[in-house]
């Protein structure tokens, strides 16, 4: 099987035209036949969606910059009033423009984000002293009804992220605060500190179960024909998180044994990783075709094997060449297999 099922997208058509050295007229005709240029209705759709998203993004960024400019000088009442007016306006817009329209969905998502801003400002103004996990928990609970009635993947993805942050914060601030040198990680900022929490493989395992369950639920409901869950970006991102929280601890366990990493229950992450890979390889190959998630699984597998090879084989310069060869063989095999799988899918469709 060769060209017959190769999709005539822009890259493939240009490649075909290049191979055949088509003249200008034939090349333009090839682009027409491939129906690459959008017609008027396609353009209307692009303009409608893209300019709405860009305009909204710039407006939100601009308004944020404006309040950041004179935030310190505003009274508490003004701060709360501004955010609350924003939330109410977002909900009213979503209601008036219909909750399933693009503008309505964007409004509801914007309102959901403002709820978090309101909670953060509340904590800042009154110095409640509450742990940050409470903020994320309250935020997730408050927007949950909107997520249920809003029927949009963006809102549900936000809920998943908030629950993740809540668990990480509760674990790292209440249950098992960082000790020793890991406390220094806080000095380098919240993102870096959050990143180091994955060093604790117990937390990583909890996050794996949480995100794995979210992914299974998402795919289960989407498979039942729920149209607003048909887009692939959100399940792909959740799958990426799910795989990362078992691959990274596994690599750390392999490489960082001597670094004093808190790797209790350390056998669990590699076991969960193998189970996750097996499930993904099966499901996304035979049940729901998704080359992106299969690529992530292969990249993770290569990373883990290379970590093992570096730890056990890297002893002199000669072994560098061996490692290079091993890496090249694995990546080539992965690319070959992915091409084979996509061809098989094309044949079946």
């Amino acid at each position, binding site marked *: 099987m060769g060209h017959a099922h190769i999709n005539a997208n822009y890259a493939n058509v240009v490649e075909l035209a290049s191979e055949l*050295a088509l003249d200008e007229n034939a090349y333009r005709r090839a682009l027409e036949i*491939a129906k690459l240029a959008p017609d008027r209705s396609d353009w209307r759709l692009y303009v409608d969606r893209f300019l709405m998203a860009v305009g909204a993004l710039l407006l939100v960024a601009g308004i944020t910059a404006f309040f950041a400019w004179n935030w310190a000088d505003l009274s508490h009442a003004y701060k709360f009033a501004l955010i609350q007016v924003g939330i109410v306006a977002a909900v009213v817009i979503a209601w008036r423009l219909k909750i399933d329209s693009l503008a309505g969905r964007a409004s509801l998502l914007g309102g959901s984000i403002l709820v978090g801003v309101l909670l953060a400002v509340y904590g800042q103004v009154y110095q409640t002293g509450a742990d940050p996990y409470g903020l994320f928990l309250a935020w997730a609970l408050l927007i949950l009804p909107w997520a249920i009635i809003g029927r949009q993947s963006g809102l549900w993805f936000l809920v998943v992220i908030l629950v993740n942050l809540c668990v990480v914060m509760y674990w790292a601030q209440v249950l098992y605060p960082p000790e020793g040198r890991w406390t220094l990680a806080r000095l380098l900022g919240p993102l870096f500190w959050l990143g180091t929490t994955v060093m604790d493989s117990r937390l990583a395992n909890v996050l794996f179960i949480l995100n794995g369950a979210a992914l299974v639920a998402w795919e289960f409901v989407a498979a039942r024909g729920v149209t607003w869950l048909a887009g692939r970006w959100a399940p792909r991102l959740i799958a990426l998180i799910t795989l990362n929280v078992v691959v990274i601890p596994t690599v750390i366990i392999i490489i960082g044994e001597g670094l004093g990493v808190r790797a209790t229950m350390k056998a669990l992450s590699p076991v969960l990783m193998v189970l996750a890979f097996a499930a993904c390889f099966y499901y996304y190959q035979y049940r729901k075709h998704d080359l992106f998630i299969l690529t992530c699984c292969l990249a993770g597998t290569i990373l883990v094997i290379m970590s093992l090879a570096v730890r056990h084989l890297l002893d002199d310069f*000669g072994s560098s060449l061996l490692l290079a060869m091993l890496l090249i063989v694995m990546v080539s095999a992965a690319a070959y297999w992915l091409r084979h799988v996509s061809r098989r899918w094309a044949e079946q469709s």
Partner: protein
Amino acid sequence: MSRNSVTLADVLDGLVESHKMTHENAQHAKLLLQKKTAVQPWYVRTMVGFGAWLASFFVIGFFVGVFSGMNEIGFVVIGLLLVAGAVALRRVFTGDFMVQCALAASLAGQAMAAFGVIEVLQWREIEVFCWAVIIMSAVLFMIFPDRIHRVLSVLLALSSFVIFVYAQELNMLIPVVGPVLAVAFVVLHERGAMFIESGQGALLRPLQNGLMLGAFGCLMLSTVYVIPELAKHVEFYPRPWISTVILGGLFLYVGSRIWPPLVVKAHNQGLTLVYGLMSIVIVAAWSAPGLLLALTVVMIGAASGSRSMLGAGIAFLVVFVCAYFYGIEITLLAKAGTLIASGVAILLARWVLLKVMSESPVAGASHD
């Protein structure tokens, strides 16, 4: 037939039907294409590229270890030999494994040769080094038949050129470099057919992608202020308005190629309105030219049906807005003004475009 279901075989059949290709040639082309495969998606290419890059480090480690007592000239010679071997390998073989080997060997060879040259020059005469890299990248772009490698060659040459500009203290050129690359990208897109007809079509997309990514990078340099403590010896030259003037012209030019056929004739002032609004967007984005570049790339990507270009434009827009927001050269009030004005202008443009593209002159935007 829907857009997504069109295959390359359909394209060949369509060319025969419209007498752009003989039946015999099409059959021959189909036979040739039996051995070909589709272009891999971006994430697979990213994995392959990252693997090659990582493997090149191991290869460098090997050669550095084996020839640890070697002088600078030795590094240059070994590096060039590696590159020559990689070119030969890639020209002969097309299998995944050999392609990977060639990529890794070439990147490792270039790094070793560059290290040798810079040691010979004793870390002085950086301009000579930059030109050596530019020439080597240009040669490799032509002779190394690999899409990923060609994009990397373009980026390497452009990075060296920017370093050369800074080394010459010609910082005032930097705000021009990004827009000039963007102009080259647009020209190349329009004249792509000439490349293809002359048999150089394989160079087209790598050059286009390299120019696009180079334009993104240079525009970030000329727009985003860099904290002085992080770059004590480098004077950046953030003068965004210079880029805005050139990119504004380009934005209008690309618009003039796309919008006229889409505006319904019943709307007499439709085109004037569209150009007027595009001008307002240019003025609103006076200190944020990245918005204009992103919108230009998105327009071209949408018009040509190139999802990768469309995605790159959107990704750059988000990155630019974030970088612009965190830059400390401009006050928060000025940033707020630019962002709000651009946002309002774009929403207004959406409203007008949906109106003038509507078949019925009285029908409005879908959600207004």
